[in-house]
């Protein structure tokens, strides 16, 4: 998928601002951002649900999004169904729209099996739990064996076991079904666990993009360490006198959090010792995607 200069305005408010994105075949791309950052709007623009004011989108090598959707499955926000129809009937509707023809029945059986809903396929969709609806949404998105999947907050509203099931399903789709996945989520630990690349959106603009490892590595230069000493007052005085570092608040077990920047930890230790502080602990805080995310969006 290639997106260049994608822009969408609502009146004077620019919701998506000159967005550039590239998703390679086989990527599991995490599309992150706080609420209102423009993630869903961007996904809707990319999929042709809403108009774009400017920019170019290419999906699976095609600029004709309608045609490209034949090889794309998507869940935007909470998937919706005709509640009075069974889960299977809802899938039959989608299969007819996709023109699956003779493949309809085996394909529906396959996707129902894939998401673990084969036993409940005849139940009315309105009787499904939220987790089942999410899975039925995935089943619908998987009809016709798409090459790319768009998932907008697929774990929203799910309980912990539902989240776990969904995460396993997504992971398995990426691993075993060779599907390129573009996923937006607030659950950063999950994104870190299943995505190889991420983009972080804030105020409609892409603020950071890269592999998860590279982003964490890049942020390591702005690392944080927790420093502990018997005399906390002396420690704080000494820290205040050292150039190139900033105190980032209280840490765990009475320690002080320090953003040490480019200063090597060994040198930080030496300076504290020189200042007469008896350092008891110097614990680097392990960086996560969440730390990177917070730094980008704040």
């Amino acid at each position: 998928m290639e997106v260049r200069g994608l822009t969408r305005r609502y009146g004077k408010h620019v919701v998506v601002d000159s967005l550039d994105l590239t998703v390679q075949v086989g990527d599991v791309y995490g599309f992150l951002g706080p609420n209102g950052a423009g993630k869903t709007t961007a996904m809707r623009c990319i999929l042709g649900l809403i108009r774009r004011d400017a920019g170019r989108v290419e999906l699976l090598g095609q600029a004709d999004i309608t045609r490209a959707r034949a090889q794309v499955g998507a869940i935007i926000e909470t998937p919706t169904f005709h509640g009075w129809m069974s889960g299977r009937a809802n899938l039959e509707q989608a299969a007819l729209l996709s023109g699956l023809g003779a493949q309809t029945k085996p394909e529906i059986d396959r996707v129902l099996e894939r998401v673990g809903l084969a036993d409940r396929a005849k139940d009315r969709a309105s009787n499904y739990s939220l987790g089942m609806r999410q899975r039925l949404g995935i089943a619908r998105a998987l009809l016709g064996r798409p090459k790319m999947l768009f998932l907008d907050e697929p774990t929203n509203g799910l309980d912990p076991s539902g989240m776990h099931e969904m995460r396993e399903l997504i992971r398995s789709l990426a691993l075993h079904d060779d599907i390129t996945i573009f996923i937006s989520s607030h659950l950063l630990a999950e994104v870190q666990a299943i995505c190889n690349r991420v983009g972080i959106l804030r105020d409609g603009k892409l603020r950071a993009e890269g592999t998860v490892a590279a982003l964490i590595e890049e942020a390591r230069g702005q690392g944080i360490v927790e420093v502990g000493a018997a005399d906390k007052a002396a420690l704080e005085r000494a820290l205040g006198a050292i150039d190139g570092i900033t105190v980032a608040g209280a840490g765990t077990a009475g320690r002080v959090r320090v953003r040490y920047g480019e200063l090597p930890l060994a040198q930080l230790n030496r300076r504290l010792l020189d200042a007469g502080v008896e350092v008891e602990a110097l614990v680097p805080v392990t960086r996560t995607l969440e730390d990177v995310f917070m730094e980008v969006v704040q």
Partner: protein
Amino acid sequence: MLSIYRAELSKLLSRLPARLGLIVALVMGVAMPMVVYGGRWAAFAAGTSMALSAGAPTMDWSPPELHSGLLWALRTRNFFVMGTFLILVGSVTFAAEYQARTLREDMLRAVPRVALLFAKWAALVSWAFASLLLTWIPCLLGSLVLMSGGDKLLAISAGFAASGLADVALVSFVFAVSVLTRSVPGTIAGVFLFYVLDYALGLALGVASALHAYPRGYEWVGTIVDQVQPWLFSSAMNAWKGWDPTVPWAWQGLVMLCLVIVGSFTASVAAFQRMDVP
């Protein structure tokens, strides 16, 4: 395209108002010959009983004319009954799906917008025709069994055909309003408001036409009023009344119905092409 149409038709036929509409149409078709026949029989029985008690000679039994069941079925279906269903079903086909966000799910398939809209409209038109046939065919068969005589069968069947055209026009108009308003209450209110305005205009023109009291030099207004009246939507919707030999077929009404169909669908496509689907 055919599979998109099939999807829309099966969805429409699974909706409660659509099913109810078809049942009501069928009940009208089946019941009307029996009601007309029964009414005539009741009148005959009452007349015979009165004649017997008065010592007067009794009348011979003669069944109703062949066309009378069809005529009452046509009148009944066009007296708001099917119109109400047409408005209900027409409004849920697009607006309810937009509001429930199921339209988005359809849009996520590889379906061009025009094709999707056309399939929805075609499903509606098919439903409207099915409702017409479900009244006409059983009514015709029932009449053939129960009744005889009369020479207006073809004329009334032509009335049914004109009624079908009016149904398609109404359903197309409702569909266009539902695309423009994207809300079921908005569609019903919009269609109702249009009807009220159209009837009000028709009434005003009717009064003006009846008065024929235009100031000197303004007689041409009367000519225009007479020419405009048959083109009103409400007049066009009554085009089916042309079955009656004493009421000439209003060709303007039939043309107007065709214009409404084409215009409504064009407006729907134009609006939907630019629409953001939530």
